[in-house]
């Protein structure tokens, strides 16, 4: 999006303190076909899976997604038709399940559907967007083929004479983020790795926030240094326990390795991979009546085990 236009949109937006609680279905209406959407978290930590789930259920189309490292959710977004293009530094299932065959079939058929940046390069794009700047200099990607194939501009520092590259800011239409705790105004606190969530929240024109636990505004004020995202960034707040499932939420639950493995191994073995993923989407995305129904598919045993192993806080 045009740099000035993105700022104007923010200037005009209602950013005041108000109750932003809503349902997942309502919140996802902030996303329109063709939008650019930034996803919080990294690989399979603190993925806003509930919002991704609802995006797929609402049959959104032609979206461009930005994420630090994309995992299996990238497969689901491709096959559902929601994702036209992935902008990421890495896209795979993970070491245990090898390169994503779904990513391969999309990216090999249409190379423009997967745009690869270095992780720092993409992070700097988010930060430039968050800083209200159109671009930012970097010392990464220099000399590599990333420099040759991406929209980078060589730039000589006017002070030191150092060779740098400029990376363009990204101001997504919407950022989707999941945190452990938030209040109804959208003050969101993160425990564990903050990933790039604070930056994408500032860079985006709108933010959909899901949270494990809604807390009172007074609780936020007890530890204001934990607030990664202040209320004025946020447009919608949805309380969604286990909202990263089957990914992890730091300090609360581990990834559901068994379920991820079932998908990963199933995909490796499937004769018709697209049919396999469509079957997965039918079962986990389209069929459940609501998010609780979705969680029921993983089962109480899975929820308990990942909670027991992932719970870090001492009482």
């Amino acid at each position: 999006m045009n740099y000035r236009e993105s700022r104007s949109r923010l200037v005009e937006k209602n950013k005041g303190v108000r109750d932003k609680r809503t349902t997942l279905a309502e919140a996802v209406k902030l996303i329109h076909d063709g939008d650019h959407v930034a996803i919080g978290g990294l690989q399979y930590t603190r993925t806003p899976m509930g919002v991704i789930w609802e995006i797929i259920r609402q049959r959104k189309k032609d979206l461009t997604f930005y994420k630090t490292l994309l995992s299996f959710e990238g497969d689901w977004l491709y096959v559902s038709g929601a994702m036209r293009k992935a902008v990421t530094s890495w896209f795979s299932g993970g070491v245990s399940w090898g390169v994503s065959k779904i990513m391969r079939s999309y990216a090999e058929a249409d190379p423009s559907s997967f745009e690869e940046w270095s992780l720092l390069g993409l992070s700097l794009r988010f930060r430039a967007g968050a800083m209200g700047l159109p671009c930012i200099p970097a010392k990464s990607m220099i000399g590599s083929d990333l420099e040759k194939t991406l929209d980078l501009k060589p730039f000589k520092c006017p002070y030191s004479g150092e060779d740098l590259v400029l990376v363009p800011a990204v101001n997504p239409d919407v950022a989707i983020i999941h945190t452990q705790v938030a209040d109804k105004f959208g003050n969101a606190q993160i425990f564990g790795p903050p990933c790039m969530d604070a930056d994408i929240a500032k860079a985006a024109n709108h933010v959909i926030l899901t949270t494990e636990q809604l807390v009172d505004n007074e609780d936020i004020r007890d530890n204001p240094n934990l607030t990664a995202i202040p209320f004025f960034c946020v447009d919608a707040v949805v309380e969604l326990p286990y909202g990263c499932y089957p990914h992890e939420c730091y300090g609360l639950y581990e990834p559901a390795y068994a379920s991820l493995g079932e998908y990963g191994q199933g995909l490796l073995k499937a004769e018709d991979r697209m049919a396999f993923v469509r079957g997965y989407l039918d079962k986990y995305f389209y069929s459940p009546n609501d998010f609780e129904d979705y969680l029921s598919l993983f089962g109480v045993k899975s929820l308990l085990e990942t909670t027991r192993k992932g719970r870090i806080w001492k009482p």
Partner: protein
Amino acid sequence: MTATYNPAELTVIVGSRSLKDGQILFAGTGLPLLSAIHAQNSHAPSLAIMFEVGGVSPQVQIGSLPRSANEARSVRRSVAMPATIDVLLYLQRGFVDVGFLGGAQIDKYGNLNSSVIGTLEKPVIRLPGSGGANDIASSANSIFIISYHEKKRFVDKVDYVTSPGFLDGGRSREKSGLLGGGVEKVITNLGILEFDKETREMTLVAVHPGVTVEEVQAKTGFKLRVADDLAVTTPPSEDELKLLRALDPEKRFLKPGEF
């Protein structure tokens, strides 16, 4: 008595030995992660590891190995958890002594490809991509690489430079404006390779027990330089293997054969 070990175990242990106590290390996932944790639990207890998800100096629990470098298990009991960008900027600022990487394809100048076999426009195999590898290779003060040694991986020129080594050799890396020192060492299941100080070409400096120079050359896709004082690696000890196997009891990373 000589211990028996598979190629992955040997490579990880040689990787572990190459790390020094007190170093600040940035590690990728897979075998580099295992080498780092092995070193931390043996000769290098104060080795500080960083992962791109944002953990500084974590204490990964033995028997609870993460599946990736990027989850709660891999940042367990870190001293700090900065944002991804800030962890990567430690590299750019110069805090990181060693970056430890794997890679799909490597060439004689130490350039790595984890993006594509073929070209971006006409990919034969699209690979997962850089992650933080490009940033680590660009700016870590030195780079170690772990790789399975075979002809299709050790190529004259990589299809795509994801992570810069010495680029076109000679002084080309210095001239490019990159900050980090480039590749110091490549550790494989056959031996250890370093880079000539002038031409920056890959040079075999050590072979593992029972491996011949001819065998390494046969599995390398370019003419290999061989050091005059070629060394032979000390085989893994029982203690080294015992610790390693305790780290990965399910053999998630230490599978026999190719890795």
